């Protein structure tokens, strides 16, 4: 237990050492997988919504608009609560983990949809025409010509979305998923050393995000090889 004595902070090093692994474990077992799985599903939703937003059919465009507006206009914490605590009222029981994945995926889907839409629009119209003139249809041009180029544009904002998502998984603690932050909370229940344990949790989140930003830099450098200033 740490003591605050006359402006002096004493760190309880044994507690710091003992708690580090359980908290990190919560991160490795829940936080990272939760973020990764939700991101994959989220990107699938986002791609669908982006294509609907770009559709020539008015109704489809509106479906995507409404979805994106609701997701962006309501707090993630409330979305989580509706899915985990609210859906059982309709007779739909959701396990904490599934609830977290569903809420986080839908959330990422709403935000990343606009990123993906913008990145598709950033590819010059001539690239679509070049695809059509060599005989490709819409789908093939999108897949083979447009998306690889849009990917380069969307990597920085999508990486930011992923890093935000890693941190947002901490909200799953409110629906009893024993992820990183929930582990720290559980230990404070017996040790009452909030400053130490929450700082430890913060440190581990920061380490995760730091590693992710390094990976982001590598991916960008890789994709840069065919992009030149004269584009």
């Amino acid at each position: 237990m740490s003591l605050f004595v006359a402006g002096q902070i004493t760190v309880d090093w044994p507690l710091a050492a003992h708690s580090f692994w359980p908290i990190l474990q919560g991160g490795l077992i829940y936080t990272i997988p939760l973020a990764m799985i939700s991101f994959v599903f989220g990107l699938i939703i986002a791609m669908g919504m982006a294509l609907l937003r770009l559709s020539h059919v008015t109704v489809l465009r509106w479906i995507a608009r409404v979805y994106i507006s609701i997701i962006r206009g309501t707090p993630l914490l409330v979305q989580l609560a509706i899915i985990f605590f609210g859906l059982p009222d309709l007779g739909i029981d959701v396990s904490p983990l599934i609830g977290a994945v569903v809420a986080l995926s839908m959330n990422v889907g709403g935000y990343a949809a606009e990123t993906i839409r913008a990145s598709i629009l950033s590819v010059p119209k001539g690239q679509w025409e070049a695809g059509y003139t060599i005989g490709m249809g819409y789908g093939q041009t999108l897949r083979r010509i447009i998306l690889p180029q849009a990917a380069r544009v969307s990597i920085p904002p999508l990486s930011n979305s992923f890093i935000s998502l890693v941190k947002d998984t901490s909200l799953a603690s409110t629906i009893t998923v024993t992820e990183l932050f929930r582990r720290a909370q559980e230990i404070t229940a017996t040790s009452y050393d909030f400053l130490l344990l929450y700082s430890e949790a913060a440190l581990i989140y920061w380490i995760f995000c730091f590693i992710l930003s390094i990976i982001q830099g590598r991916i960008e450098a890789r994709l840069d090889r065919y992009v030149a200033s004269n584009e």
Partner: protein
Amino acid sequence: MLLNVKNLQKSFGGRRILNGIDFTLDEGKVLVLIGPSGSGKTTTLRSLNLLERPEQGVLQIDGDEVDFSKPVSKKTIRAIRRKSAMVFQNYNLFPHKTVLENVIEGPVMVQKTAKEKAVDNARKILERVGLSDFLDSYPHQLSGGQQQRVGIARAVALKPRLLLFDEPTSALDPELVGDVLKVMKDLALEGWTMVVVTHELKFAEEVADKVLFLDQGTILEQGTPDELFGHPKHERTRQFLSRIMNKV
């Protein structure tokens, strides 16, 4: 007759862009479209590849037909589109693919040619346009003239019945124009059927079998290069020609 264009009409934002365009082209012939900007020559060319959709008119290429006044099925669009291939003013190469990949993309992904065969063919074409040393380069590593020759190779590799050129040298530095025109001339000599929008009158004079002068969405005058350049009938044609000549 490989190409038959009847009464193309198109307006945009209340303005007439095409006002009844008619012409035909026989196999192996080269047609050059000239005219001031806004005359409808590029729109006419792009209509042949269905990158523009006129509201009226009929397009026949090599036995396939589109009637623009009726809804057009996707199947028809594909069939017509595969008869021709476009070379763009700004090249529109795929920046994420190498030179070789740019050229084999259509044959492999659309025409389902075996990859080795497509690569073989692409190498031959790229050699002919003088780019053998750049197979694995990315477009941004090439000069404009080289990029446009890749653009031509990409179109030729599809073995279309008709090659379309949309001001292929307009974006190039003057000293790079010659190489591209030389490639186009060679293609014409090999017997390719070509429709070319250009301001290069010398090229038109040497290579074209027929020249159309477009003005305000109509064909004001047409004929052999000798007729059109030597004895233009219309005042507008004369004005346009003298303005272009003086600029060069």
